């Protein structure tokens, strides 16, 4: 479904502090599977994730999504792809403080122009699915870490993306909440979603729900 060829990514290119975060990545990510990028801090996991999710561009190499080259697309085409194809769950959740859980969930769908009633219904359905229906009107800063993560997951799913991308999703969670997250992963896979996440948490990497683990070190694939 997603194919990366010869991906290289440099930061501060041409300057003294030039740094190559990725050094020639060739991988294919299968549809409807859970794939984990594993590696130590600084191995290039998050950089690779942002490139797959069209949040940044490679310095060299191509990214193909269902046979369409998306690495060279102009921003206005990328916005649409980001909105319709990918759902993001960030490490720090990046929820908007001061807004209720349901408003946070609805936010990414506003540019799509859905009727408000339909959008609200969809958001309530997602919160209920993630057992957060009773907290829908609570401001996000009043929620626990696990609840905040589930709001972030609901937000990632609001536009019904084919691919869910999560960066270190269990980094801020205890074991019980991490197991709960793995349960959500299972549910997403059953729904036919393609899931790509980064993690160096053994609980995630060794979980049965994970179909494939790709090891990264120093911007290269190691296994």
């Amino acid at each position, binding site marked *: 479904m997603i194919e990366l060829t010869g991906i290289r990514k440099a930061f501060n290119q041409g300057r003294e502090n030039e740094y190559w975060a990725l050094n020639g990545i060739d991988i294919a990510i299968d549809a409807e599977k859970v794939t984990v990028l594993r590696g130590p801090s600084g191995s290039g996991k998050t950089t690779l994730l942002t490139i797959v999710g069209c949040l940044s561009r*490679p310095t060299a*190499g191509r990214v193909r999504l269902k046979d369409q080259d998306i*690495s*060279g697309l*102009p921003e206005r*085409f990328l916005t649409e792809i980001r909105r319709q194809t990918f759902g993001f769950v960030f490490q720090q959740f990046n929820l908007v403080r001061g807004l209720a859980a349901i408003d946070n969930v609805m936010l990414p769908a506003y540019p799509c122009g859905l009727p408000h009633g339909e959008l609200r219904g969809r958001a309530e359905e997602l919160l209920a699915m993630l057992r957060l229906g009773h907290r829908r009107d609570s401001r996000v800063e009043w929620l626990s870490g696990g609840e905040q993560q589930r709001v972030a997951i609901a937000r990632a799913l609001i536009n019904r993306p084919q691919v869910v991308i999560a960066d270190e999703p269990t980094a801020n969670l205890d074991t019980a909440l991490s197991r709960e997250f793995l349960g959500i992963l299972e549910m997403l896979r059953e729904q036919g979603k393609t899931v790509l996440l980064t993690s160096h948490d053994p609980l995630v990497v060794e979980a049965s729900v994970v179909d494939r683990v790709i090891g990264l070190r120093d911007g290269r694939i190691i296994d």
Partner: protein
Amino acid sequence: MLFQPAIIALLIATATSVLLLAASVPFAARVLASWDLASGSERQLRMERRTYLVSTILSFVFASQLVALLLFIFNADRMSVLFVGAMCAVGTLNVNAWGFPALLAQIGLFFLASTWLILNRVDNQAPDYPLVRVKYAMLLAIAPVAALALGLQLAYFLGLKADVITSCCGSLFGGGTETLGGDLAGLPPKPAMLGFYAVTLTAAAAGGWAALRGRGGLLLAAASATAFLAALAGIVSFISLYAYEHPHHHCPFCLLKPEYDFQGYALYAPLFLGTAAGLGAGVIQPFARVPSLRSLVPQRLRSLGAFSGAMFLLFLAFASVIIARSNLVLMDG
């Protein structure tokens, strides 16, 4: 003479355009030499990112050139009061040998710029840069024209001397003079009018056809170019006579003057815009078979056809109103 606000604005606009075009030429050459969408090399990805910056800058450059033509003509008309013998823009343009060449270069630049803008718009709507080579090749052709326009403008404006006694429009557009203007002025009104209406209506119809069918761009371009020339001939031959209510005053520039209610602007604006849209339709038509443009080109042909057709009809409407309102009787019956 150089320190007229309109002249300064024109020179700044054209000089800036030439500078930015010159700066874009190496990039255009690089695109033509090594653009390869199949490659994921750093060089290719850099070009892909840069092409948006370059084409955005060029869009502003070319848009400024569309306005520059209007400013050039407006300025030529306004300055006629400064020269002995000048009655309108013709006198100003005749002050030295560079006036009319500068005007013609500016008109050429207008149509090249509008065509490039249309090409760029179509290219930007497709995800795979289908016209990138075409538009940068065209840029390489436009850059020398822009430089020529700047050179002619400089020669013309620097050569403006207030003590020169210039000739008025009567000497250029008099029926008996041996110039192109004189020949056009000498056309018999009835056949000229019939030809004018037939050709311009054909262009409007070609625009309508393209708007309805999403094809016929080449036909529209040919019809627009012919209508443009026929319209200019018609203005000199008989529309001007009706506008001035004078059987021997053929000047196409006096129409721009306040004494004649600026009617020239109402005539020329739709004529130039309609022709530009028609020519643009012709330029994009051959790319209708490019896979990523299969739906985009017909869509663009529809809008260009509708716009061009509407502009030619508007031009005809203004011309007809001038004729209908006039007290001049040019033809019996």
